[in-house]
C-alpha cells in the first residue's frame, strides 16, 4: 500500500477528522488505491503546459463597489447555532 498508518493519521489530523482504530486500515486501503489511480497522471506530457485553475480561460475577477449592503440579522443567522450566549458562538476554551 502506498500510504502507511502514520500518514493516514496525520492526514486525518490535518483535516480534523476522528478515525476509529477499525477505520484506519479501511481508509489506508482506499486512499492508497486512489493514490495509485491518480498516479496515472505521471505519464502525461505536461512540459510547458500552464495549470488551469478555471474552466473558462481569460476571465478576470469582477469588483464590486465599496458599499454597505448588509444589516444586522444575527438573530436569524444564529437560529442554527448549536451554542450561543450573548450573541457569541461558544466553543471549548481556546488556549493561546
Amino acid at each position: 500500500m502506498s500510504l502507511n498508518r502514520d500518514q493516514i493519521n496525520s492526514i486525518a489530523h490535518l483535516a480534523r477528522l476522528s478515525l476509529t482504530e477499525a477505520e484506519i486500515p479501511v481508509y489506508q486501503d482506499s486512499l492508497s488505491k486512489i493514490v495509485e489511480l491518480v498516479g496515472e497522471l505521471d505519464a502525461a506530457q505536461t512540459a510547458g503546459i500552464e495549470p488551469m485553475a478555471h474552466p473558462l480561460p481569460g476571465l478576470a475577477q469582477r469588483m464590486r463597489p465599496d458599499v454597505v449592503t448588509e444589516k444586522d440579522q444575527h438573530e436569524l443567522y444564529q437560529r442554527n447555532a448549536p451554542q450561543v450566549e450573548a450573541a457569541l458562538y461558544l466553543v471549548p476554551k481556546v488556549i493561546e
Partner: protein
Amino acid sequence: MHTLTLSELAKKLRAKEFSVTELTKSLLTRIEESQQTLNAFITVTPELAMAQAKVADATLASGVAGPLTGLPLAHKDIFCTQGVKTSCGSKMLDNFVSPYDATVVEKLNAAGMVTLGKTNMDEFAMGSSNETSYYGPVKNPWDLKLVPGGSSGGSAAAVAARIAPIATATDTGGSIRQPASLCGVTGFKPTYGRVSRYGMIAFASSLDQGGLISQSAEDAALVLGAMSGFDPRDSTSVDTPVPNYLESLNAPLAGLRIGLIKEFFEKGLDASVEKLIREALKVYEKLGAKLIEVKLPALPLSVPTYYVVAPAECSSNLARFDGVRYGYRAKDPKDLMDLYKRSRGEGFGAEVKRRIMTGTYVLSAGYYDAYYLKAQRVRQLINQDFKRAFAEVDVLMGPTAPDVAFGIGAKASDPIQMYLNDIYTIGANLAGVPAMSIPCGFVRDLPVGLQIAGPHFAEAKLFNVAHAYQKETDWHRQIPAVFKGELS
C-alpha cells in the same frame, strides 16, 4: 396529469383544464405514496407548495402569468431553500434550516414555479449511485433493487417515476447526466458559469454546475432560461446574455457535424450499450447529420485528474463544517480539537471523509506539485482537446455511462469501481462545456443514455439537437410500469 410533460402541463394549465392546486395536490399524493419505495425525497414541502399553488392560480386567472407560472418542480437538497431544511444528504446538515434561498431557487420562485420538496442525493454530492446519503439509498424506478445513479439520484428517480415533472440537480463529474442515463430521463448540465452557484452548497467549486433533470429537452429548455444568467453574488458567474432556448428548438439539423470521441468507444463500454448508441447515431444521420471521428487523447486521464482536483477543492470547501455556527455538533466535546474531530468524524459519511482526506493529501506540503499542479496541467490538455475537437465538429456524442444501472450495494465496497462510472462524463466538467444525456433505448429492460456535448454556451444548440431526436423517437416518454398509473 403525471404522464404529461412540463410543456404539456403549461399548456393545459393555461387552457384551465385543471388548476395548479389540483395538479400540485395530485403530485404531493404521488410523492407520499411512493416515498417508502423510492426514497426520492428528503423533505416534502406540502404547505409551501399549496401556498405557492394558490398564488399561481390567482396569477393565471389575472392573465399576467409567465411561461413557468404554476409549474411544479423538486429541488435537489443541495440548493439552499429559505425556511426549509437543506441537508445536502448529510447528517452534518440534518438540523440545518437555511436562512436564505439559493439564486436558482429565488429565480424559479420568482417565475412562479411550485416547490414540491427537496430530493435525496449522495452526501455532499459525492457519489454515483445515491448510496452515500445519510437518508438511505434512492431506488431506481425501473428496478427497485438497482441504483438510480448519483449524485442527483433523487431528482432522476422523481422525474422517472413522474412524481415530479422536473427537478433541479447539480453536476460536478456527471451527477446530472449519469443518473439521467440510468433512470431513462433527460439530464442537462449547462456551461460552467451559466447558472449561479450562490446558494448551491459547494463540493468542487471549479467543476460544480446547477442544471435540470427533466422528461425532455424541450422541458429543460423551458426552465433553463429562467435559471440562468449573471449573478453578482457569484464571482464565477458569467455575464453573457441568456438566449431564448425555445427559439431554435426546431431548427433543422441538416449539415450538423457530430464528433464521435474515439477514446470513448474503446474498452470498458458494454457491447449492448454501444449498439444502442450507434443506433441513435443512425437516427441523426437520417436527419442529415454527418458523423466524424475525433481524437481527444488526454481525455482518458479525466478520472485521475478529477480525483485530484475535486477532492482538493472539497477538502477546503467542507472545512467550514465544524460544529461551531450551524450543523452537527458532537456531544460534550472535551476541548476544541475534540469538538472539531468528532463533529466532523461523526457528522460526515465514509465517502465524504475519504475525499476530504484525499484532497488534504494532494494539497499537502511536498505533494502539491506532483498532484494538484500536475492535474491542473492535464486539465489544460483536456481543455485544448475539446477546443480542437469543436473546431472540427458542432457537437460531440457518445455514451453517458459505461453500463446500465447496477445493484444497490454491488459497488459500494470498491470506491475505484464506483469512480469509473463517471469515465465519460467527467471531461465536460473539467472543460466547463455544456453536456446532456437523453434516453436512447433499453438494455435488459434498463435505460441507456446518449450523451451530447457542445462548446461553451452552446446550450441552444444542444437543446435543438436533442429535441430533434426526441421528435423521431419516444424513449423519453417511457415510464416504468410500476409508476405508469395511479399509485396506491
